[in-house]
């Protein structure tokens, strides 16, 4: 899911009629003018900023500049701060929580309202369940204002505050739907001294699979992915992702490096989880996690094999998949063998196990026989294949 930075989420709120404090976004120290006193907020795509020192209140310009300099050269919870939102400090009398997400059990979007904003709503929910109201609404229409009024009036809220809160909640459900959000939270939504409501913080995440409907926001996603790629992924994972992009056929690049001697080419998703657990249970030491599937090309499998074998300390390779119907066993066998040969290794010694039964298995097994590789058919379970791989890597078989 793509988490929007606070300022971007707030742009969406304003555009849809939800008020926010006046503010200015800065990415360097040059001559920005801003109101004082102010709140400086590091723009990072992660929660818990306040506790990590990413939010500070300032009274004077001098103070503001000092903190700006510090924030812009720091990281908040592992994310480098590239911009800071300077917001007017708003005097508030009361704070509320508004949240929208999908209830995966009911399979409906759900609106959540609490009279106790500003803190963890889950905590409030446990301690004082009556203070947290929830209501499902249709994904196609959002929550109409009258429904929001029915909901919020249960808390004993009356008058203009009821109207303002209901309108805000209803608008937030419309935003949730319109922008294909998976989470849209305003926390806190504050009541000001003159009785208005204003969104002090906002957390929005959008559905990656719906970004094709939101071209402008999608371009932000590209940028943030590149930044993430530098900070979070190691070389091994990055190279694997490059292999996956070699062509369109199949998935072969989702790798996570571990510190072991047994390289894994495993798939599809469910079988990868199963095989990895099984290797650990037999006390094997995986060199990597991996998910392969969707009938990857010989080229992809070959390159992936080479990448894993190039990892220092990798002694053997285990190839384990569930019974395949779409992926072809012969193409997998060809890719793995080619990769081993091009790494200057001997297939029969390097392959601890090859267990892919299913489509085109006869052709696949023929290739493996030619290179003297032992293979397993569907009578050998994923668990047993993992055991064989671990034993062989230890030199016990």
């Amino acid at each position, binding site marked *: 899911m793509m988490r929007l930075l606070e300022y971007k989420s707030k742009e969406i709120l304003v555009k849809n009629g939800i008020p926010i404090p006046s503010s200015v976004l800065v990415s360097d120290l040059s001559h920005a003018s801003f109101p004082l006193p102010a709140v400086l907020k590091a723009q990072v795509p992660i929660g818990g900023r306040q506790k990590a020192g990413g939010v500070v209140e300032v009274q004077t310009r001098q103070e503001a500049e000092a903190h700006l300099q510090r924030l812009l050269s720091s990281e908040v919870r592992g994310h480098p701060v590239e911009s800071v939102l300077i917001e007017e400090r708003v005097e508030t009398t009361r704070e509320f929580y508004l949240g929208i997400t999908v209830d995966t059990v009911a399979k*409906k979007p759900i609106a959540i309202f609490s009279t106790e904003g500003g803190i963890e709503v889950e905590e409030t929910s446990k301690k004082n369940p009556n203070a947290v109201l929830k209501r499902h609404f249709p994904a196609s229409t959002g929550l109409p204002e009258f429904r929001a009024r029915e909901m919020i009036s249960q808390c004993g809220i009356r008058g203009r505050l009821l109207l303002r809160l209901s309108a805000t909640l209803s608008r937030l459900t419309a935003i949730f739907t319109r922008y294909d959000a998976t989470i849209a939270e305003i926390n806190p939504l504050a009541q000001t001294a003159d009785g208005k409501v204003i969104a002090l913080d906002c957390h929005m995440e959008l559905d990656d699979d719906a970004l094709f409907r939101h071209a402008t926001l999608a371009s932000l996603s590209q940028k943030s992915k590149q930044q993430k790629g530098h900070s979070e992924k190691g070389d091994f994972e990055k190279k694997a992702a490059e292999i996956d992009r070699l062509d369109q056929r199949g998935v072969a690049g989702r790798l996570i490096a571990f510190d072991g001697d047994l390289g894994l080419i495993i798939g599809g998703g469910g079988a990868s989880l199963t095989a990895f657990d099984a290797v650990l249970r037999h006390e094997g030491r995986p060199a990597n996690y991996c998910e392969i599937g969707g009938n990857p090309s010989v080229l992809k499998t070959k390159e992936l094999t080479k990448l894993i074998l190039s990892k220092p300390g990798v002694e053997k390779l285990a190839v384990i998949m569930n019974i395949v119907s779409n992926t072809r066993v012969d193409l997998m066998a060809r890719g793995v063998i080619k990769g081993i040969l091009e790494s200057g290794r001997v297939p029969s010694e390097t392959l601890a196990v090859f267990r892919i039964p299913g489509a085109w298995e006869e052709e696949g097994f023929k290739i493996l026989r030619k290179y003297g590789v032992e293979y397993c058919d569907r009578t050998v379970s994923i668990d047993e294949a993992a055991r064989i791989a671990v034993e062989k890597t230890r030199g016990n078989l």
Partner: protein
Amino acid sequence: MAILADANTKIIVQGITGREAVAFTRDMIDYGSKVVAGVTPGKGGQSVYGVPVYDTVLEAVTKHGADASVISVPPTRVRDAAIEALSHGIRLLVLVAERVPRRDTLEILEFAREKDARVIGPNTLGMINPHVVKIGMAGGPVANVKSAYTPGTVAIASRSGGMTTEIANLLTLNGIGQSTCISVGGDPVVGLNFLDLIPLFEEDPGTEAVVLFCEPGGVIEETLAEMVATRGIQTPIVAFVAGRFVDKMPGIRFGHAATIVEGNKGTTSGKIARFREAGIHVAERLDDIVTILKGIL
């Protein structure tokens, strides 16, 4: 007996002229499924393995009638195709595509509830009632399906498409046949999930036990444990929970979009503990499913 479909279920394929759809249409026909028509807008008048292709579901339904539709169109077009099928009275949809926008899934399910229809998927390989009917891609070509799936009394529901066939094969190798095998789909929100299926299996006289393949992420398993206890579900359930190592790596996304652990929610250890409390059998190794079933049946 089994659930959801039988030998007389009339099936259409939306997006039938696509490469994948052509292949699984042939596989379904070879297996004995009644594929009565296909729909690809703009390609009406063609045929795929003798199955007539129409421009609209309306034409297909008017000429042939249909109970089920396999929707094999790109993710951006799934909503439109599903609403079209539901609008013309089709009561069982199989949504094959991965990466369907969440909102589209929710809107499809909303409309399906109005129409009293059932949806499998998205991100599913479909379902198989062994030797009777196969709807979707599950199992692949007929020879493969026949060697992995055999008729019997154990149902399978799996969050992984590939593992549906893997588990069926494991049971078949050990002389245990299956009633209905469903790949429920890998997304966080799918149509028929474990919570919907267990009551259907409970009512099915042809199902004596159910095997579930579970993954990290989401709270469906935890909710199922509650449901089994409160409703007094009698059908024995054997669950295998894959991806136990994921508990130690919170926040990293594995496999299906659903496989993400957030905080304390959705961990495999949590799911296993809830299952045990509710009297659901938990298989430590995949192979243990067989031992447990043999003790039950």
